[in-house]
């Protein structure tokens, strides 16, 4: 599964990426996770199965959902508390729920 995360500059989300990768490795779940800035999302969305937004850019959710709709992938914003505490396991679970239903 390819999970794309996005925030303003892609910096704080990259912290979450490492935690999510660790959580994925622990349960042996195959996935690729990476973080991009909001502007760069359009260049990366083609290779993603799900797009998650940092809560600080959730004002972009409308636009991003539209973009995700065109590509047929789910888009949502990350729970602020999970985001702040860098809870990789919970965010990974959330991403899987969005994709696998």
């Amino acid at each position, binding site marked *: 599964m390819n999970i794309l995360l996005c925030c303003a500059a892609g910096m*704080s989300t990259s912290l979450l990426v490492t935690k999510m990768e660790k959580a994925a490795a622990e349960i042996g779940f195959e996935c690729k996770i990476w973080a991009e800035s909001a502007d760069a999302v359009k260049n990366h969305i083609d290779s993603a199965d799900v797009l998650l937004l940092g809560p*600080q850019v959730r004002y*972009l959710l409308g*636009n991003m959902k539209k973009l995700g709709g065109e590509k047929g992938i789910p888009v949502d914003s990350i729970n*602020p*508390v999970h985001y*702040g505490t860098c809870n990789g396991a919970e965010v990974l679970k959330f991403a899987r729920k969005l994709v696998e239903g």
Partner: protein
Amino acid sequence: MNKFLAFLENRFMPFAAKLAAQKHLSALKDGIILTMPLIIIGSVFLIFGYLPIPGYADFMARVFGEHWLTKLSYPVDATFNMMGLIAAFGIAYRLAEKYGIDAITSGAISLAAFLLATPFTVPFTPEGASAAVDVAGAIPVALMGSKGLFVAMVISMLSTEIYRWIVQRDIVIKMPDGVPPAVSKSFVALIPGFVVILVVWLIRLLIEYLHAKGFFEAASIHDIIGTVLGGPLGVLGSSLIGSIIAYMLIMMLWSAGLHGTNIVGGVMNPIWLSNTDENRIAFQAGKELPNIFTSQFFEIFINIGGTGATFGLVILMLFWAKSKQMKELGKLSAGPGTFMINEPVIFGTPIVMNPLLVIPFFLTPIVLIVTTYLAMSTGLVARPAGIAIPWTTPPLIGGYLATGGHLSGAIMQLVNIVIAFFLYLPFFKLWDKMKKKEEESAGQEQQ
């Protein structure tokens, strides 16, 4: 208070969404970002040109010859001094991209239009002469930098709007089938490009005509935009009140958990960036620095540890937290906080939508703007010298480098961390106590 925060959320979300969807504003922001890596690279050369070590200049002159500083400044001229030129391309490119029209062509046309708006003459005072004469046949470097930034903003949008208007109405030269697509694509730009050049050319001719007849003091598009746009915007961005208002808006957005810096930045960044460059020019010339409110003033001195100056709060969590949650969060946020990133603090504590912690979060930057402004305007602390270091530069190092190597810059950052520490202290104690109680009662239930 909760009602107020709900109000913020309900009011600001649509506002922020609208602002983010506004094509011109976001093109402006994204286009100017194109200049940032270059400006930071130029700053490296700037720092090495003016290291405040006694005997450094003499040493460099001995090793590299007496023109060492001029030669070291070549990259500065090609980066800082081309800010407007690069923005003219970048803004048009990003705007065209958002409209879904040929971005690189729009960028190139805008670049030509920007140069067309610029008179190719440079004032030169010959030896023995009292007044400067205009020398033709040279592109004025001064107008390619921050002085031309506002012109670049206007021209790039005007040119891309004309381009889009014509292309979307399908007024283009069509090639018969069988002509390679790349060839016919190059002809698509012909008519809109021609109209853009024609319009800018006519505007320039009109201004020059009116100037020659004595109706206008302004002699060029640069003069007009400088007075009409640069003047008022400069007042807004260079004054204490203007900066406080901008930061109040940024902090309100962040209080609702929205990236305020990014949302308001589209409007304020060009102003603060051109203030940075004005200081850089004065710094290189050895003159007094004209501005206090540059981009670095906010990035380095106000947002210490991230927006809201949360570095002080992270120190509280690390050393004075009683609750497990706050201790853990302190450990988690110390690393990012050192590099001015604080999303873990903002969302993890949480500060967002937290009626207690939103108070110091909102107040601290405003207080720091005032104290730093006072310290710099009285000359107690060196002003930011127009050196653009990355905003992720850790505290103390950042203040030292941004002021062109003044210890007072590092001390100012330290003082601001202490101020932030004490402003957060009472609110953090209360919050920590609540968390501790929560943990204890949860522990008892389990037993």
